């Protein structure tokens, strides 16, 4: 029973992450009609915002280790700790959540530059060329990151207070066996908030209304004298921010390296397509569905019956859903079908 409960929790947690990572991708599909293979790179850049922020905050006074003579080895003491003592140390401890404040403007800028500088010229080009150019961009971005930070993962721990596990069992009177990491619960909540904000923004603001109208019939909205283009640029910026935030918050779970974007690229495409192209609700539903199924497929009891099922479950579900529901869970007719 506890095991099942844990797996459900784990599935929700994974689902939240999948939905959040895929959200920006489906947003760009739905509005701009662009197949963005650089979406994974945006996720990675977000994570490296956290790394950069951490590097800046932990700029250190280097005390040479005199016992080593062959090269310079240092014991590093961050300036923040030297100058502000415990306050500085606490600041460093909270570096990942704090880097959100840096990631938002940086990712917005990157998104806007990307859209203005490159993507806008590819709206009318065939999907194949969009794939090639964004894939090229993704490679360039990750190679640049690699040249600065190397290929090795970089540890970016969560604040101490939330580094451990929450005793959820005790909360519901189930005993001590149901524990779950605080940070993963925070991630789930964070994903919920971001997803809800994006929904609300599109649903309840004038800006969102115009964007939705533009998604439905771009030409008509343009004829009404509204600059749809500018709004779509902003949408791309928002997508970049969402992908970036997903990356920032993921760093304590997965120490970031330059290649992490590519690792999540296929997954986020599967989530988006299973949900239905351009459908935000679909992406969220698909994220949770795939998360929970993957979680259960990895249980030893299930693997004993069908060996290797955990390796293929995501793709298997994708195939079944696409065969049963032609446009994914909530896709509209005619989007990306040619």
């Amino acid at each position, binding site marked *: 029973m*506890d*095991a099942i409960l*844990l*797996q459900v*929790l*784990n*599935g929700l*947690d*994974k689902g939240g*992450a999948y939905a959040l990572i895929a959200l920006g991708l489906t947003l760009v599909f739905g509005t701009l009609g662009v197949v963005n293979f650089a979406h994974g790179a945006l996720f990675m850049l977000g994570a490296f915002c956290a790394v950069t922020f951490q590097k800046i905050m932990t700029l250190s006074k280097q005390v040479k*280790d005199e*016992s*080593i003579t*062959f*090269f*310079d*080895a*240092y*014991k*590093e003491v961050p300036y923040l700790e030297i100058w502000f003592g415990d306050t500085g140390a606490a600041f460093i401890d909270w570096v990942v959540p704090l880097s959100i404040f840096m990631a938002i403007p940086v990712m917005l800028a990157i998104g806007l530059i990307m859209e203005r500088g490159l993507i806008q010229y590819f709206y009318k080009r065939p999907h194949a060329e969009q794939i090639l150019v964004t894939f090229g961009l993704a490679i360039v971005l990750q190679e640049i990151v*690699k040249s600065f930070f*190397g*290929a*090795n*993962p*970089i*540890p970016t*721990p*969560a604040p101490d207070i939330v*580094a*451990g*596990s929450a005793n959820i069992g005790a909360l519901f009177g189930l005993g001590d*066996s149901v*524990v*779950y*990491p605080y*940070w*993963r619960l925070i991630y789930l909540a964070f994903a919920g908030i971001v997803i809800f904000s994006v929904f609300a923004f599109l649903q309840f603001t004038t800006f969102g209304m115009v964007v939705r109208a533009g998604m439905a019939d771009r030409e008509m909205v343009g004829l009404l004298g509204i600059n749809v283009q500018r709004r779509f640029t902003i949408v791309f910026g928002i997508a970049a921010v969402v992908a970036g935030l997903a990356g920032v918050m993921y760093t*304590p*779970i*997965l*120490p970031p*390296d330059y*290649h*992490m974007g590519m*690792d*999540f690229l296929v997954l986020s495409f599967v989530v988006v397509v299973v949900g239905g192209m351009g459908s935000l609700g679909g992406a969220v539903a698909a994220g949770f569905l795939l998360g929970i199924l*993957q*979680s259960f497929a*990895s*249980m*030893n009891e299930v*693997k004993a019956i069908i060996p290797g099922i*955990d*390796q293929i479950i995501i793709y298997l579900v994708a195939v079944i859903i696409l065969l049963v529901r032609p446009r994914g869970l909530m896709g509209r007719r005619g989007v990306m079908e040619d």
Partner: protein
Amino acid sequence: MSKTKYTRRGILKSGVTLGAAGVAPSFFVRNAWAQDFTNNPGNASSVTLGFNVPQTGAYADEGADELRAYQLAVKHINGEGDGGMLNTMAPLSLKGNGILGKKVEYVTGDTQTKSDAARASAKRMIEKDGAIMITGGSSSGVAIAVQSLCHEAGVIFMAGLTHSNDTTGKDKRKYGFRHFFNTEMSGAALGPVLEAEFGKDRVAYHLTADYTWGWSQEGSIKKYTEALGWQTNAAVRTPLGAGDFSQYITPVLNSGADVLVLNHYGKDMVNSLTQAVQFGLREKQVNGKQFQIVVPLFSRLMAQGAGENIKGILGSTNWNWSLDDAGSQAFVKSFGAEYGFPPSQAAHTCYVQALLYANAVEMAGTFYPCEVINALEGFEFDGTGNGPTEYRASDHQCFKDVLVVQGNENPSSQFDLLEVVQVVPRAQVEYPAELLGGELGSCA
């Protein structure tokens, strides 16, 4: 049916001659008296070695370190720099004037940690660049793939970082040599330490990367811990590069196991360890005992990626820069002077492999691979950082001391991440060659 014996070596040779003939017809002037073999340097004033390392992908940093070590080795063999281990290795035939008086040059290639790419790169070195020896790599799949290619081509392969038993077991080859240790030796070295630290009455839960190396590692650790009296609760296979391992860690919580063994390497290990620690496993009490995590193979680069989480975790490693024997010191000194930081275990094994090859050629007095292989087989040496070492003739595996290490609780510098718990003597990790099976094949 076919009477003529076509061997790959013959074809390759003619291929190379043909290819070279197009570019520089005068390059391949064969001497009547020289033995005929692939990429015979003949009278040329230099000889080319092929350094095949991962330059892109997850092991790019390790590959970059390997390449640095090779470049250093080339310098030292050519008599430049401070000589490094040439000052400490014994017996030594190298004179610091290249190999057999020929200046050493090198070509590099990117394995991408993929068998296909690694073989393509090795073939380029053999067919185009005329490499007489191939070395490098950072995974067992690649090592085995390139080793069998080199065996077919008649070029010696000095394996880089490869830890699976198969490299010198089931898939061993006459032309392939491994200096690095393997999972069997890891298990043998870790067993007694695990007993001393955690006792005889433990229940282990394995998470294993679902491919050849992972299985090899899992098998060895199971074998040695079960011999201690440990029970194995479950051994769960995880997909390579899974990223998020949480769905595999949650079942550990209530399994009744009190030790988690992570048979993961590289990025997988960094991720699974980070996540396992987040799940509070290290604070857990099970069966009245403190829960423990063991990572059978790790390196300083991985420890760096795992950060705080690695502190106090036990594992094994081939070599660490903090060793204070003369060989290690000489190597760390020249590597540090050249690049400004200490070498990794991958760099160490690659550096030693390059020296061992050069030395064997010098001993044999010829580049003819069969003679070089003879010189390497059963070669006993010291002064390369792992104590007295022997290249066993029957499987081309080096036998030497193995390090059991622990993530350093209180590092004195940014490089001081591993603390050597015990130097396990060679006698304790030796095993009969028949244990792992395989067949070397013949030379000519």
